[in-house]
């Protein structure tokens, strides 16, 4: 797309673009190139000698059982968060879309968690599920469940899934609500007169009409679970116990920053970049379809 009427100026557009381009080159392209280069090198632990080793780092990473385990954890985590956050948001949006009293107040009270930092959300829930002092943590131990997310990997994973979902419900709610509100009420009224109940109306009319939004949210929720949940995991479990909650992004951090394995960590970064590019490409294909719809 282009405008018909424009300004003629030789230097000015470059000057206007300069700040954005400078930051993009210095802090995006250069580091991304470095990551790719670094992923093809092996460095001795003192950083004195480096050797070009082609794709050996990738071979090592992709055959490492710990990495494959992290892939599995990431997918369980991402699918659970996406499923929980999307279904509960859709249910709430469906209810909030009805012509009820206080709909505006409900909306306000359902969207604020978007503003809570992932790490802060983790702290809030830690205070509830702490095995010794937490309200639910103690309650569970009192009724005989040996709750301790610092020792039990499954419990730890469930807890990070809960926190990550809790924070994402508001976002999905807003998008689902907007999609539902764009469905003409007359269609639903007609169905209601024909005797279709709430559930039937939902599955035969509403669900097909909001499927583009659902698909978009599916992608956004996957990206969120992959990347934005680092704070939840770092604050709550540190990837533990025994790597039970170590997602791919957490592993890049712990291998690179804590264990200083630059080659391996860079190879993992590059793999993650490929995943983001894939997800973004799928998302944009969908948007193009929606535009030409």
């Amino acid at each position: 797309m282009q405008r018909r009427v424009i300004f003629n100026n030789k230097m000015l557009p470059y000057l206007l673009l300069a700040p954005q381009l400078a930051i993009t080159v210095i802090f995006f392209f250069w580091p991304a190139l470095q990551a790719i280069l670094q992923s093809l090198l092996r460095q001795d632990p003192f950083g004195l000698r480096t050797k070009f080793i082609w794709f050996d780092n990738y071979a090592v990473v992709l055959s490492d059982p710990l990495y494959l385990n992290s892939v599995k954890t990431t997918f369980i985590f991402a699918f659970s968060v996406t499923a929980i956050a999307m279904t509960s948001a859709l249910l709430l949006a469906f209810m909030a879309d009805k012509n009820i009293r206080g709909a505006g107040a409900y909306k306000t009270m359902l969207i604020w968690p978007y503003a809570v930092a992932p790490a802060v959300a983790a702290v809030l829930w830690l205070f509830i599920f702490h095995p010794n002092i937490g309200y639910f943590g103690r309650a569970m131990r009192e009724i005989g469940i040996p709750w301790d997310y610092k020792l039990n990997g499954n419990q730890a994973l469930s807890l990070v899934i809960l926190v990550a979902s809790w924070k994402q419900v508001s976002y999905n709610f807003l998008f689902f609500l907007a999609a539902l509100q764009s469905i003409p009420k007359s269609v639903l009224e007609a169905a209601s007169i024909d005797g279709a109940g709430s559930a039937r109306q939902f599955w035969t009319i509403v669900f097909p009409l909001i499927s583009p939004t659902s698909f978009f949210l599916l992608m956004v929720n996957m990206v969120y679970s992959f990347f934005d949940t680092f704070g939840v995991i770092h604050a709550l479990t540190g990837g533990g116990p025994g790597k039970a909650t170590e997602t791919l992004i957490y592993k890049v951090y712990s291998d690179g920053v804590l264990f200083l394995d630059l080659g391996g960590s860079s190879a993992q970064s590059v793999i993650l970049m490929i995943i983001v590019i894939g997800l973004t490409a799928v998302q944009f294909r969908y948007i193009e379809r929606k535009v030409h719809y």
Partner: protein
Amino acid sequence: MKGYTHNGNWQAHFFLVIGVAVLAFPVYLALIGSTWDAGTIARGEMPLYPGPNMVSNYLLAWGSGSGQRVMGVPAETMMLNSLVMALAISLGKIAISLISAYAVVFFRFPGRMFFFWMIFVTLMLPVEVRIIPTYKVVSDLGMIDSYLGLTIPLIASATATLLFRQFFLTIPDELVEAARIDGAGPLRFFWDTVLPLSRTNIAALFVIMFIYGWNQYLWPLLITTSKDMSTIVIGIVKMIGTGDAQTDWQIIMAATILAMLPPVMIVIFMQRWFVKGLVDSDK
């Protein structure tokens, strides 16, 4: 018909109240926790109603950030750091995106599409996937542990540039022609016409970007090493440490409430712009 609607409403209220309660419960408990003393919480005897120590807990969290066991940083310092970071990132993103979108839309010059795509693909390179090399660049530039290092690398924004570009394309050609007939140059047109027209978009983006900046975690975790530079989100997690039962939970919870306050208030009081920003920026 009436009966059906009534039944539907009852059902709606039921689910919505549960939803609101589940979302609010952790914050309620944090509020309660911030009003008791360390002993009551450590013994697991905290009731579900407020205790007597609210004022002293918040004063401690704000002024010193330390209790019997926790040696933290005053929330005052950390909130200021978070505020500087959130404002620098949000205003910086808006400023550089406005001018770069203006260049791409209102001028024709060699490399226009190439530069646009350069900005566009940064969408696919979130800071999380290039942590270590970006850290190295910042450290080579000597920007570790400074506001510059904390904010500049996060200022480039494909989202904001795309959004402003989209909006600029809808500005009628007649306005541009009128400005040119009046003898206004591109900068004058930007300042007198484009900027005022973009007000709503700027407000909406500001809300989203402020929250984004305030809630940053991984980047400040790497870049800040001294206590004076700590942001509030990082500070709280550091106060918890290993998460023993015997710690100053009341101060940690007071700091947690303080950390949530600015972004949550912005969402509640600027709800209209928040919703617009969220929906627009993720299209």
